[in-house]
Each structure stands twice: as C-alpha cells, then as structure tokens.
C-alpha cells in the first residue's frame, strides 16, 4: 500500500514532465505588461466619467449662479417692457389701450381698483400725459392690471411714476397722482 507521505516523491516522478519553464515565465511577464497597460488604460477610462461629471457640475453651478444672479438693470428694462400685457394677452403698447373698452384698472400691490368714470381721466393721463423714458434704466416693483370689457387683461409693470409698456418705458406723474387720489 502506497502511503500518502510518499505523495511528494510520487508526484514529482509522475509530473516530472510538468514544469514551469522559461516559456511560461515569458508568457507571465508579457501578460503582466499587458495587464499594467490595461490597468492604466482603465484608469484613464475611469477619468472620463469623472471629468464629464465635473464639467456637468460646473455647468450646473454656472446655471444656478446665473439663475440667482441679480438681473442687470438693462435686462430688467427689457423684461418689463416685454412683460407688459404678456401675462394674459399679447404685449401691449400704451397707444393700444382703448378707453371705451377698458372696464377696470387694478393696482396689484394694494388691490386698489378703479372703475367707471374715473377710468377716463386715468387712461387719458396714461396716453396723453406721459413721456418716453426708454433710455432710463428703471427697475419695476409693481403691476397694473387693465381689464377690458371683452375679458382681456393687460398686465403692465410699474414703478411710480414709470410704466413699462411693450414699446418702452413711459413716465406719467399725473397718472400716479390721479391713481393715488382716486377712491376705489
């Protein structure tokens, strides 16, 4: 009976022709070089998503910062000019307001509402007693809603004595004085 203790001797004899030779060594070294290359390449490849994520984060930051950045007053002027009447209707010019079709005017900040005969004076002041100050840079802080009898509503940004129409900012001291004096 052959004993297990003889296994090394028996195995060495049985496997004498099975040796880790020079060709296997060269194969290993080549594979190691290839592995190193692949590893480096993989590392570089891993950098790509990292770089892309960084760029995406940077873009997001820029977008967010831009979103929070105070709008330059030139842009505000443009925005408010074009906001006039745009919320529920097309942008409106001060010339387009038809006295006969206006039903009411509401100041958004305090909800003051002017109707009926008082409207005529106000609209006339808006259209006749106002000057173009489009070259000035005005920041608007309130809104007027001009309701028409046909259901349309023009939303006009204001900052007394300035009014932002679609075709530019106009100034009307009379309009705002009348507005203050008028009872709702």
């Amino acid at each position, binding site marked *: 009976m052959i004993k*297990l203790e003889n*296994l090394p001797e*028996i195995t060495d004899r*049985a496997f004498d022709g099975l040796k*880790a030779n020079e060709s*296997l060594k060269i194969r290993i070294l080549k594979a*190691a070089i290839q592995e190193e290359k692949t590893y480096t390449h993989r590392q570089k490849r891993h950098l790509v998503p990292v770089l892309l994520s960084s760029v995406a984060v940077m873009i997001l930051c820029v977008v967010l910062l831009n979103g929070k950045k105070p709008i330059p007053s030139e842009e505000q002027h443009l925005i408010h000019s074009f906001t006039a009447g745009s919320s529920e209707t097309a942008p409106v010019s001060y010339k387009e307001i038809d006295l006969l079709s206006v039903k009411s005017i509401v100041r958004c900040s305090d909800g003051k509402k002017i109707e009926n005969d008082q409207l005529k004076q106000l609209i006339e002041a808006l259209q006749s007693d106002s000057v173009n100050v489009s070259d000035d840079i005005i920041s608007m802080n309130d809104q007027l809603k001009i309701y028409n009898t046909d259901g349309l509503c023009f939303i006009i940004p204001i900052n007394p004595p300035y009014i932002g129409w679609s075709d530019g900012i106009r100034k009307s001291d009379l309009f705002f004085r009348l507005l203050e004096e008028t009872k709702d």
Partner: protein
Amino acid sequence: MPLSFDELYRLYATDVLRVSYYYLGNREQAEDVTQDVFVRLITNQPELEQGREKSWLFKVALNRCRDIWRGSWYKKIVLGHPAFELFPAPDEIGTAADKYALAEAVSHLRPEFKEVVLLFYYQGFSVTEISEMLGIAEGTVSSRLSRARNKLQEELEGDEKR
C-alpha cells in the same frame, strides 16, 4: 529583503502549476492559473511577510482553481473526473502504472478534500497554515484530511482488488 519575481518563480512556479493541474486535470488551465497567480504577484505587488510568500501564492492559485472549477463552462466540459494524465520523465515512461495510482487517486478526490491533501502531504503546509489559507477552521482541515485518507484508501484498495 523580499524575494524577487525571478526567485519566487524559480522556487514555487512548478509547485503551483502541479497543484493546479492536480486540481483541474487540464494542463492549459493549470498554466493559466499559474500565469494569473504570478501576474497578480507582479501587478498587485502584495506586501508579503518573509516566509509567507508560498502560502500567498497557493492561496491565490487555489482560489483561481476553485473559480474555474465552479464555472459552469468547466463543469459542462469536464464531466466527472478531470482527464488526469501523468507527465513522467522520459525514462520513467513504461514503469508500472500502480506507481502512480496514488497520484491519480488524489486527482479523483472532490476539490475540498483534494486541496487539503495537496497542501498538507504534497506541499508540506501545517494544519494551521492550511486553515488560514483556506479560511476554514483547523478542525475542518483535520476532518477533511481524515475523510480524504479514507476515500483514498477505499479507491486504492478497490484498484488492488480489480
């Protein structure tokens, strides 16, 4: 001073190759395992304590062998026992087959028995070292060795009767 790749290859590569061959019964697979082990040694550059290099090499080799053995591809291709063959020295060819009966019987053991037998009897690792290498309790190593001995005895006695 840590041993170089050349020294480790010279000292242990053949043993790794033979143990892998014992495990898998396929020369190409055994060479692949040996390659993987030494490539990992070069690329990972593990900090091996002096005298622990051999256990590291065998631990990696056996893990790799187990992976291959468990692989569905290998199980499909190698049905039953691996196609174990001997590689005797030229002048040994033609000697009595029973001389190699033990080697063949060991190769027929189930992997969990084969690895402890190879590590203990062929490579001379202690039960404690094998327990650390395989991540199993020393008692489990001893019990596997005992059961492996019984199975080998049964197989060799069966051969003698035949």
